[in-house]
């Protein structure tokens, strides 16, 4: 947010969420993967909502990563994500590493299987 720690903050984080919004129940974890659903933004969404949606349009990111990209506090980013999920603009999924993502056949990828294999071999050697 602020470019310099010694400089007084100019843009408070509540600008991102909007002050009038009521608190939603905590449903997301900091590592929940988020991806845009493709639905259009409404007029009440702030520019930051738009930026979040833009960030996850091409692929999933976790809430922490989004916070990092946008220089926002993680707590605020979680709040934004929850607002967007409840508005149907983002899809949340259980955090899974990319490598674990099922391939087309619905099975783990070959690369993953090879890594598991090499790991097991390493264990046996030890």
């Amino acid at each position, binding site marked *: *947010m602020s*470019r*310099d720690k010694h*400089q*007084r*903050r*100019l*843009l*408070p*984080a*509540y*600008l*991102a*969420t*909007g*002050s*009038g*919004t*009521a*608190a*939603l*129940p*905590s449903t997301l974890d*900091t590592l929940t993967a988020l991806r*845009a659903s*493709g639905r*259009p*933004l409404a007029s*009440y969404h*702030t*520019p*930051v909502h738009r*930026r979040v*949606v*833009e*960030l996850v*349009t*091409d692929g999933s990111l976790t809430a922490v990563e989004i916070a990092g990209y*946008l*220089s*926002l*506090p*993680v*707590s*605020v980013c*979680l*709040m934004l994500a*929850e607002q967007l999920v409840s508005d149907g603009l983002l899809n949340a999924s259980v955090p899974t590493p990319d490598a674990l993502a099922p391939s087309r056949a619905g099975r783990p990828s070959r690369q993953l299987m090879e890594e598991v294999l090499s790991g097991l071999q390493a264990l046996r050697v030890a």
Partner: protein
Amino acid sequence: MTSLSEPELALGAVTAVIAVVALLLALLCRKHVRRGRKMEAALKSSEARVLGMETAAKSAEARVQSAEAGRLGAESRADDAEARAGMFRDEVSHLVSVRLPALALHLISSHHPVPGLLHEDAAEPKDVELLDSVLALVSGIALKERRRVDAAARAALRGASQDSQALSYRLQTELDALQKEFTGSRSLTHKVLTADHLNEQNLRLIQRTAIVCGAWPGHVRKDTYVTEIVTGASSRLRGFERVKINSRLGATDVGIVGRAAEPVAVACTELMANALEHSRDDLAVDVSLVKTGNGSVCITVDDAGKGMTPEAVARGARLISAEQHEVMLTELGDPPSQGFAAIGRLVADHGFHVSIDNPSPYGGVRAVVTIPPNLLTSIDEEAAPPSVMAPLPVMAPRADIRPASAADDAPAADDAAGASRPRTPAPGTAAELPQRRRRVHAAPTGEVTAPTHRAPDPERSRDAWSDFQKGLESGQNGTDLEETQ
């Protein structure tokens, strides 16, 4: 001798007697002559004395006359002096009972007139001077005392505000840290953000009061993006969601130099606060940023409220003009209009310009903050990217120019596609900055054809003129009928 006869003797004796008598007579005569002469001289001298007395009498008479005249003159002078003293008394009592109270009112509010003397023409210049000097002295004393009291009040208020401001900044730091360090439940985040916003509103009020009382804005910023300043300004207000900021700066790197950043932010906050306050809760306040041709940046705040009365505009304009350096608390009214006073101080100190006397196209007030080029700078976006909370620039207003005829068809098709596209950026183009597109209504080039020369058609023109005439006649008949009815 004896022989002398008796007659002879007698004769002699008679002669002697005569001689003696003659002598005596002669002597007597001489005496008389002398006395006569004496008497004559006496007569003469007495005559002269009479003359002298006459002149003396005359001069005495003249003296009497002059004395009389003197007495008369003195009497009239005494009357005159009496009259003048009476008039002066009247003037003094007029001064005490009418003019001084009027002056007291005039000092409170300058539209109360102070009446002049009772007898303006008859009064002596010295009296006029004397009486007026009383008024001048009284008003001088009153103004001096007022300034002293006002300065004391301002100093007290400034000290209290600055202490409170410092505490609020500390609270802000704590709340900011709280947001960054913890990811607790969402309701906690929500409460921390609400507390942050409340603190920010409080900070704005305190800062404004401090500035009105002669303090500086409280801290110096680094060079800051204009969009960030305007967005930050809106964040200090309740209902900031209603403030819609449109940046039409063209470039994203336009910044305000550090020393003017906070003052401009405070001025924008106050103008937006006015706009929010004077328009309904469901109406947006439009803020647009434009870079003008002469290199300055204009921040325009439009509201759709009721607008200000001409008196309020004049008063506000007087407060925000840079002429008035010292703001008196007594002149701010009740409730005190601190916003304009604070802006006035900042404008005087930092050299930007604010105007509020343009009507808004929405019927409310249009306030314009103009930042001259010497307070602008460009910021390295690589080193210090603008915050995601600042609005991205949209296209600057440009004249619609018909494109060159060769490239006419292709862009028109593009534009038609663009018009039907949803407002959200399509996937793939999302991360890029918004691209400037030609306006949609410039697209249908086929409809607007250039006027071509037509051959004159006598029948067409006759028809047109006869239509025109018919229309005119029917119109006139209609009004005639209405009038007769």
